[in-house]
């Protein structure tokens, strides 16, 4: 799908366009222009319905992109990018607050969930109808819409090539990561905004194409209440939100027959809780799960120049069924530098040595660790999220970190910086180094864990007693209201959840279309 850059944002209402209270009517209103909301909005518009798409954040144009990580986070992420889930440990988490949602600032990984996860969803939560083969056509559709393809060889960069080298030496699976990127030049600036727009975030794809099909897009609108009567949805209310401060100005009232919530795993439950929807079994916001990620920095004799090449261009499924996925990692050096050891001149030496470094990480499917999302008191629409790492999941995390160390040794690293409290800050990369971690009594508070993959806070299932939506995405207790974001996943998808979230949104769109037909 190609889009003329000049036409990209035509048709999107912005903050300065609003001159008074808004009273709108449509067939369907979608909340959230991120990956899942954008899929739903596009599909419904393409089906010929009158659809409104709301996005709380502003447009972020290429001319707004800055390389500075701090400024980018402050301007594109909820709560200025300093949001964290309370718990042991605290888990920093980032969600986008811009047109395109997190797809504008994420690392573009688009991976199909393996069948064993759907087996788990069935066995643990009774989700019968959704499995890999029935979801494959929806994966196909979304992948075609976004031009998803494996990372091209010329865009890899050394950090990805060394990852492959290590996996090859150990006989482990590895492959170029499928991404929603077309024509990557390896700038590794996914986080601050792709300078060439090779990354096909939803603002320049599904949203832009949806507008051509009649989609009405309103940015800087914060949804505050799903309106309902007699167990049926009637629309949405909200306010015009200042692009920077989120301060409320004009009110927004939308009448709609269908409401689709793609506000994300943290914001959708808050919106529902603030709407006083029927929740007799108190399931909304419960069972929050995520993929905590732990990273190791390895140093090589050669220059790796980790700022060159696709941010996460390679990954490995070798240990997926065991419970973790290995991947290359890159983020702005200012963000990564915080986990370097030492102080003063020694710390600066590490910074100077970054050019010899690669950072690889593991993301973990934690079976026993859960959290919760609650709405804060008063008018705030911000979530109060907690997440507790269960000690029963620590052996998995320990093994994942050990495996990363073994991988670095196989790839030829000479020194490892594990970033683990109570361990040496630098460890020689020798054969068997992973066993040091395997023998270590690792606690969750020993590591800096970040979790940007969130799911299950409004999970699907056949039983209204322990789930929020059914297998069509419709809420058990509020007809006409669908949830399309990753909150519906009953358990971990084992891999980065974006593509599966989009495929589910694509599936649910079909049901919404049926509901809207006369």
């Amino acid at each position, binding site marked *: 799908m190609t889009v003329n*850059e000049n036409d990209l944002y035509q048709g999107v209402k912005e903050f300065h366009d609003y001159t008074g209270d808004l009273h709108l009517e449509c067939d369907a209103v979608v909340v959230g222009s991120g990956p899942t909301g954008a899929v739903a909005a596009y599909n419904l518009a393409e089906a010929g319905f009158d659809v409104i798409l709301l996005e709380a954040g502003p447009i972020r144009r*290429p*001319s707004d*992109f800055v390389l*500075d*990580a*701090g*400024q980018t986070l*402050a*301007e594109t992420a909820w*709560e*200025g990018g*300093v949001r964290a889930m309370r718990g*042991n*440990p*605290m888990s920093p988490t980032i969600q986008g607050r811009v047109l395109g949602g997190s797809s504008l600032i994420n690392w573009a990984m688009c991976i199909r969930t393996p069948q064993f996860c759907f087996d788990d969803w069935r066995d643990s939560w009774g989700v019968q109808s959704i499995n890999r083969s029935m979801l494959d056509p929806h994966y196909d559709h979304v992948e075609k819409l976004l031009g998803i393809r494996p990372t091209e060889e010329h865009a890899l960069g050394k950090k990805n090539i060394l990852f492959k080298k290590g996996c090859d030496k150990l006989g482990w699976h590895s492959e170029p990561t499928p991404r929603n990127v077309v*024509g990557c*030049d*390896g*700038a590794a*600036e996914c986080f601050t905004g792709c*300078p*060439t*727009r090779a990354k096909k975030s939803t603002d320049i794809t599904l949203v832009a194409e949806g507008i051509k099909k009649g989609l009405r897009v309103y940015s800087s609108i914060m949804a505050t209440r799903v309106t309902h009567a007699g167990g049926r949805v009637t629309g949405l209310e909200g306010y015009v939100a200042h692009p*920077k*401060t*989120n301060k409320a100005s004009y009110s927004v009232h939308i009448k709609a027959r269908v409401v689709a919530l793609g506000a994300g795993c943290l914001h959708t439950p808050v919106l529902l809780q603030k709407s006083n929807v029927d929740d007799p079994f108190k399931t909304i916001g419960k069972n929050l799960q995520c993929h905590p990620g732990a990273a190791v920095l390895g140093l090589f004799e050669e*220059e790796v*120049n980790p*700022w*060159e090449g696709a941010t996460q261009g390679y990954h490995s499924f070798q240990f997926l069924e065991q419970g973790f996925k290995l991947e290359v990692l890159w983020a*702005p*050096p*200012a*963000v990564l*530098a*915080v*986990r370097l050891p030492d*102080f*003063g*001149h020694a*710390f*600066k*030496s590490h*910074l*100077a*040595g*970054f*050019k010899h470094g690669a950072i690889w990480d593991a993301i973990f499917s934690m079976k026993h660790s859960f959290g919760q999302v609650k709405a804060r008191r008063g008018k705030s629409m911000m979530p109060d999220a907690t997440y507790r790492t269960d000690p029963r999941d620590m052996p998995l995390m320990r093994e994942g970190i050990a495996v990363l160390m073994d991988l670095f040794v196989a790839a030829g690293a000479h020194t490892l910086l594990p970033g683990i*409290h109570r361990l040496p800050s630098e460890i020689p990369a020798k054969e068997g180094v992973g066993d040091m971690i395997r023998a270590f009594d690792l606690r969750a*508070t020993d590591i*800096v864990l970040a979790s940007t993959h969130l799911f299950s806070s409004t999970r699907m299932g056949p039983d209204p007693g322990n789930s929020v939506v059914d297998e069509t995405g419709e809420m058990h207790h509020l007809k006409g209201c669908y949830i399309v974001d990753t909150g519906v996943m009953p358990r971990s998808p084992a891999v980065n959840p974006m593509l599966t979230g989009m495929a589910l949104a694509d599936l649910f769109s079909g049901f919404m279309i049926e509901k809207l037909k006369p």
Partner: protein
Amino acid sequence: MHLLLLIAVAAVAWRFLGGYPQPSRSYTNLFRSEVAILNAAGEVLFPAGGALSPGHDEAGITEYTDNYFGWHGLRNRTLMRLLLILFEHATILFVPSWQRMSQLAPEKRLAYLRGWAESDLYMRRMAFESLRAIMCMGYIGNQQVIKEMGIYRPEAAEKNAIIQRQPEA
């Protein structure tokens, strides 16, 4: 008795609020005390010379943080202010010393901050990570530091960038 009490209150007030030097330049968002705190932390965490020539001053960490405060709303700014206050005044507990962090001799100041970074108390370590995160953003946001670290944008990406930026002078 009342005089003694007055002197005690004045001493405590001075300890917490008084004696901060006038900064050498004006700042939009930072208070005088915050400038002093950041400069003091920067002096030991990002000294001049060594593997990367700029120190905290030349890299403009305090100026960056002034901008950083401006990019955030009231809630985050308040949290960051509290963070700086915590580091400045917790010397009473963790050195222990009546002197504020910004008044400690550099070696003592570095040891004090190291104590936060290496503490067995998780929240102390997290507090240090938060402080260092802000300062790292400032340090690595400096063009000279970026140049000396060897960071660059690949030629192909530079050529194809939609917005061509002029390099900073």
